[in-house]
């Protein structure tokens, strides 16, 4: 058990290191560097040399990677070129905002998905399953920018329930952001729930046909109790890792959804940073996304480990 725990955590650390190396050297491979981008066409060789000396860009790449990685371990993400401020200050608030959006999405989306998935799986191919699965497949195939735009059209333009575009600043109080995140979160829930409920449905169908569910029926266990005590706990176990994967996968969706709704989160910042060619900022955001991805999956793995007795305790 402890060995498995350490192994998973070790693997997560290795993955993070690989992400850091990839992010750093991918940008290194690009023609030019932060100084050529920052100073533009009019830069002279002396200006470039001075800039590179100031930024430490004249050092060999491996040395700079070590310095960059060392700074990150101390909580220093570097300095933004365009904004000329420490990246930590810029990223911190946006990270909070994105986490708020993710939390709202997960709080609504996961229970919704589990519930609908179980409902669909209990009577496969029944009318309820047809409706739920049909909508889910639609949600999975429509890209975020279309479903987001549709949300704005329906809930903002036609019904007028919520503002279509988020207008508050990135330092707004958390509660205001929760309120502002409703439409973007709904867009994300739409997709997230679709993926998870398809998985839960398949899992419920499988468990319903298992020997132990038949055995429960032969024991005289009422249907309701069979569902709650025998089907649901066993069907949700495999869903945990899918939830982890889907949540992590959602980060890609965040970039688009935040842009569509003008939500002041990490995703929109990433788009801005790329547009501004602010390379140190892009590096930092890419690394943060990687960190969130790895942590989410690690969390899902550990949760699955904790809840599944077959993984938790071994015979012998």
């Amino acid at each position: 058990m402890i060995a498995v725990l350490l192994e998973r955590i070790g693997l997560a650390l290795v993955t993070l290191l690989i992400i850091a190396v990839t992010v750093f050297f991918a940008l290194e491979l690009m023609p030019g560097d932060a100084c050529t981008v920052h100073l533009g066409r009019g830069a002279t060789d002396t200006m470039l040399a001075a800039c590179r000396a100031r930024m430490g860009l004249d050092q060999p790449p491996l040395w700079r990677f070590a310095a960059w990685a060392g700074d990150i371990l101390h909580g220093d993400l570097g300095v933004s070129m365009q904004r000329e401020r420490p990246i930590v200050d810029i990223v911190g608030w946006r990270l909070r905002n994105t986490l708020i959006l993710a939390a709202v999405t997960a709080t609504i989306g996961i229970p919704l998905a589990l519930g609908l998935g179980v409902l669909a799986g209990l009577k496969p191919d029944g009318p309820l399953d047809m409706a739920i699965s049909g909508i889910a497949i639609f949600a999975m195939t429509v890209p975020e920018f279309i479903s987001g735009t549709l949300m704005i059209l329906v809930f903002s333009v036609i019904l007028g329930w919520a503002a279509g575009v988020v207008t508050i600043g990135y330092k707004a109080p958390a509660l205001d952001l929760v309120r502002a995140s409703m439409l973007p979160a709904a867009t994300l829930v739409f997709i997230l729930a679709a993926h998870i409920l398809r998985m839960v449905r398949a899992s419920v169908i499988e468990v319903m046909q298992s020997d132990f569910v038949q055995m429960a029926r032969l024991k005289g266990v009422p249907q309701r109790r069979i569902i709650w005590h025998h089907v649901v706990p066993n069907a949700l176990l495999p869903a945990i890792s899918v939830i982890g994967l889907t949540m992590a996968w959602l980060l890609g969706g965040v970039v688009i959804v935040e842009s569509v709704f003008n939500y002041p989160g990490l995703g929109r910042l990433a788009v801005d940073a790329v547009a501004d060619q602010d390379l140190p900022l892009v590096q930092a955001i890419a690394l943060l996304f990687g960190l969130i991805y790895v942590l989410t999956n690690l969390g899902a793995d550990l949760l699955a480990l904790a809840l599944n007795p077959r993984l938790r305790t071994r015979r012998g």
Partner: protein
Amino acid sequence: MTAPSPRLMVENLQIGGAGFLVVDRVSFTLGPGESLGIAGESGSGKSTLLLSLMGMMRQGLLHVGGSVRLDGRPMLGQSDAALEPVRGGKIALVPQNPATALNPSRRIGAQIDEALQLHSTLTRIDRAARVLDLLGRVRLPEPAIAARRFPHELSGGQVQRAAIAMALAGEPDMLLLDEPTTGLDVTTQAALLDLLVDLRHRDRVGMVCVSHDLGVLARLCDRIAVMYAGAMVEEGPLVPVLTHPGHPYTRALVASIPRIGAAGLPLPIDGNPPSLFHLPTGCRFAPRCALVQDACRTTRPDLELLDPDRKVACLRPMTIPAPVTRPSDAAFAIGAPILAVKDLSVGYAQQNMFGKTTPRQVVEAVSFTVQKGEVLGLVGESGSGKSTILRAIAGLAHPGSGSMSLTRDGETRVLAASSTERSLAQLRSIQLIFQNPDASLNPRHRVLDLLAQPLLLYGKVARSQLRAKAAGLLAEVRLGAATLDRMPAQLSGGERQRVAIARAFAAEPDLLLCDEITTALDVSVQAAVLELIRELARKHDVAAIFVSHDLAVVRAIADRIAVLRSGRIVEIGPAGDLCERPVDDYTQSLIASILRIPA
């Protein structure tokens, strides 16, 4: 004194689907404390019948006709909700495979407690005590600990006991047992059957037990019903039915069972059971029956009284003793040794929770030789190391110490530990046949492709002669040349195992390693496979090592037997001597726990 009124009444029961019946016109009654065994080979409909007694239909099957009544109350055509108080309360099932029939994420105690919640009025505290009481009653050591365990944390025998405890929780009058001891070691099986017999006599629980193993039924039941292709062919008191069968199928089934007390091979039943979609118009057993007459092919016999207590579905029933075994062939003359194993030890590295490895010894200092043309049987319970020895000889397990040597054409050479270090000639001369042909035959290859591989690799057969050569191999295992173009999935289990045997003989080996090769087969098919191995080994002068957990099977085929316990040979000797006059205590207890069929 009048006979007790029957509790369970089955009348003309028919279960099936579009155009076929899995259970056809089955009738019987069962009173309190009575026990009925249902025998039959796979596909005979016995498990479907058992489930229907609880008002449950297998997926895709429908109740077509007839009725099942428990205490006068109909069990079929009822909703699950209506049957809730009956299921588990009046009638309970002990499942075939308890490892999958128990909820993997709930503790044993909680699952037994659930049955108590549903079928008793006990308070929470009383229920907890009752759970421990039940676990103690099925003789699980340390009930308090067992109750806290998850199913995967118990051994096969322990889970089966827990499943029995769960079935007993509702204090049912009727217990249904579906192959209750399949997959258990003989000593565990014997203990479990003692427990069930005790329950029956003490609590007057009625029992219906389904099993392919007549020994299990003989231990547990007073009456027996024999099923063939969905219908009952014979029903009556167990001892006379098995000693003087009235139906030719019963007689053939009894004769196909290997006996520990008799030398020689059991008798196979020719042919295959009919497809349920294309049943013969007359008697269903007619195409395989030795005593068939013209009338049998046109008239379907009903189950009729043969004597006041026995019913047989045959046009010319008779009660003659079943032939026991075929007289054994000429005594084996010891030839030159072909394989010598000396001080063989095999261990596995076992990882503990901190990643530390500790060696675990599976085989310890085992020595034996195998002579040319001899069949050596290796017998032992699960974990005794018998399969590991076989894998070591095949070069698939890495021995820790010891040596092996193989003699071919008068030349003795050391046998390298790993198959990758052996010469092609050595690889060719040792061939392995696995337990499960479903897993050992590539499902995407035609039979021809399967046989072509060893022919091309070892035999250097020209491609133009491949088909003829492969057809010749199939003929030796009594399969037609049409089988060459079939896929493994299109063959029956027995036919698949024959293909696996043909594949082994394609290499023209000197030594055949057989790893539980009949365990997955029905008894009548097992008898045919044993006969085949024996015949081919004699014909081609091939030696064989035959591994099995079943001493009776090994006695039927082996010249000499080695008994293994915890990785050591405790006794080795000629088959007849070892079975009739065992010297070692363990061998004696092993033979004592073998279930005997009345003869």
